[in-house]
Each structure stands twice: as C-alpha cells, then as structure tokens.
C-alpha cells in the first residue's frame, strides 16, 4: 500500500517532472526529430487523477496502481525532481495544491476577533476551519496581508491537514481576520 505521504511526494515530483520532461522532449524533437512530447501530457493526466483521488482513495488497489504508474512515468527525472522539490526553491515552492473537492470554488472567510459568537476569542492566536484544509490560503489581518513562516515578526503557520492557522502573536478584540482560500 502506498502511503498518503508518499502519494504527496509522487504528486510533487510529477509536478516538477512535467517541466523537466517538457524541456528534454523539446530538445529531442529539435535535435533528433523524434517527437515524444505526448508523454508530458500523460504525466499531467495521471498526476491530475492522483491529486483528485488523494483525499478519498489512498490505500485502495486501483489508486495504488495509478500512483505506481505515475512513478514509472517520471522515473527518468525522479532524482532531479525530488531534489528540486526538496529544496523548496526553483520550480516548486511549498506543497502542491491538492483540492479536496473539484467543485471547491475559491472563497473568503471573515471573522472579527472577540465578537459575539466569534470563533476567535480575544487574546488568542489560533483559528481552525475545516473548509481551509487542503487549500492554499491568503491571510489578511486588518487589511494587511500576513506572510507565513517568517523567522520573526507577526507571522503565522498553517496546518494544511486540519485547516488551522496559528499566529505568532495573540489577536486583539475587534481585529478582523480575512482568509481567502483557493
């Protein structure tokens, strides 16, 4: 059985491999008059299926077959892709966007800290909303975009699995948190 973490790695590596393969096959087409660029499209097609199925199908026999097939398709670029994906720079920064739902349109959430019924009590630093899980988010506090994972200053970390934002500082009453998720 292929683990969820390994599937995430496969997806990242395939995302990078698409660019590497495009480059190689274009050179091949130009210098050797041999056109295998269709294979790039196949990597994309299989990888999109992996992304869609990850929240639901990891561990099933059929999904494992597709994951293994993806791994085989990118084998030629695997080492380079894994290196690039691991550095966090270059072609891939952070983790790929893995939508929980194909119908998941982008949306916004606005919360006033400490207001009646607010999910964020005053002088706390955490907000969880499952809607944000497996999404890419943009965090805005009082109309200022906050950068994630900074070494110092007002920043935040985001747990993609649970949809939890943890700020480096407590939020004060009446501060307005807006989250755009895509």
């Amino acid at each position: 059985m292929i683990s969820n973490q390994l599937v995430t790695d496969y997806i990242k590596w395939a995302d990078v491999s698409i660019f590497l393969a495009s480059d190689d096959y274009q050179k091949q087409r130009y210098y050797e008059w041999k056109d295998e660029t269709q294979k790039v499209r196949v990597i994309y097609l299989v990888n999109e299926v992996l992304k869609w199925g990850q929240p639901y199908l990891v561990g099933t026999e059929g999904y494992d077959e597709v994951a293994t097939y993806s791994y085989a398709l990118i084998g030629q670029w695997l080492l380079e892709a894994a290196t690039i994906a691991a550095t966090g720079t270059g072609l891939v920064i952070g983790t790929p966007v893995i939508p929980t739902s194909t119908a998941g349109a982008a949306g916004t959430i606005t919360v006033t800290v400490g207001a009646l019924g607010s999910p964020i009590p005053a002088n706390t630093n955490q907000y969880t909303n499952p809607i944000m899980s497996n999404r890419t988010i943009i965090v805005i506090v009082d109309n200022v975009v906050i950068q994630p994972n900074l070494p110092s200053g007002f920043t935040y970390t985001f747990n993609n699995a649970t949809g939890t934002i943890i700020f480096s500082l407590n939020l004060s009453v009446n501060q307005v948190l807006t989250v755009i998720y895509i």
Partner: protein
Amino acid sequence: MPFIANYTVAQGLNCSQLVITDTSSYASEAKVTFTYRRLYLYKADGTTIKFPSGSVTDYINFSFAGYPTDQITITGIDQDYGLRIVMELNSSAPQVGSIYTKSSVAALTCYTNTALYNVAQIAATSPIRLNDPVFYESWSQLQTEKDAAVVAATYGDQFSADAALKRAKNLINQSSIKF
C-alpha cells in the same frame, strides 16, 4: 460590522451529492434576526435543481432550524453541471452595508473526475493502450474539458463551464468505444 453572506461548495466521492456550507459570520447579526435562508441552484438552462426531489419550489429551504450546523447535503445530482448557486437570506432588521445574497458559479466535476480516474486505471494496468490514438486523444480531451469547466467557473462563466461539462459527458457516454 456589516453582515456578508458567504458559502462554500464541495463534492466528495459520491457524485450524486453536493454539500453546501454557509460560512457567513453571524457575529454582527444573529441567526434569529433572519426570517429565512434559501438556496437556488440554477442550471445553465435557467431551471433549478429541486431538493427534496418532490419539491415544487425553485428554492431549497436551507432553514436555520432544519440545518443548525449550517451545512446541507443535496442529493440526486445526476450529472456534472455548471451551476449558479445563490444563497439568499432575509433579515428582519437589515443593516446598511450588509450583503444578504451571495451568488457564485461552481463546476460540478465529480462524474468527469471519476471517468478520468477509470481511464487512468486502464492506462496504468495496460500502458500499451496509449499507442491507440483514439484512447489518448479522448483522455486528453476529457481532461481539457474538465480543466476548461473549472477555469470558466472560476471566472463566473456558467455557460462555458456547463458546455465543457456536457462535452465531457458526451465523451463519457462513448466510453465503450473511446476507452
């Protein structure tokens, strides 16, 4: 702070179901101030999806009493659609600056995604099928239609999204000869 209506749309592995969650913040206006909450699911042809199935109204009654968790699971989705989803709230004490109606376009792609998954499984177990131009072109076309639908919905173009999904459905209907 004004009230702003908002919701999210999600589909899981069960393509016949659609989950809509009201994500509006009721901090500025409590739920008791609203007399109703309704959903309209407009198809591209202007008709609406009825829920429950025997309903005679165009709207779905997404009442606060009936759905205290602010989430409704709509069943009976028979195919992929480009839907314009409208959530309408009626306030008994409306405030200036508040927005009580939210409308957006969503591309329901579960059936197409399931078909794409099935095709990928065929390719995974029998890679030689990729040498068949009909197989490859059809697979690529199916993905293109899905991508087009998602992008069109992102830009609020319901009709293009729905048209792409209908083309995808035509391909799926020909699965036995395409794949």
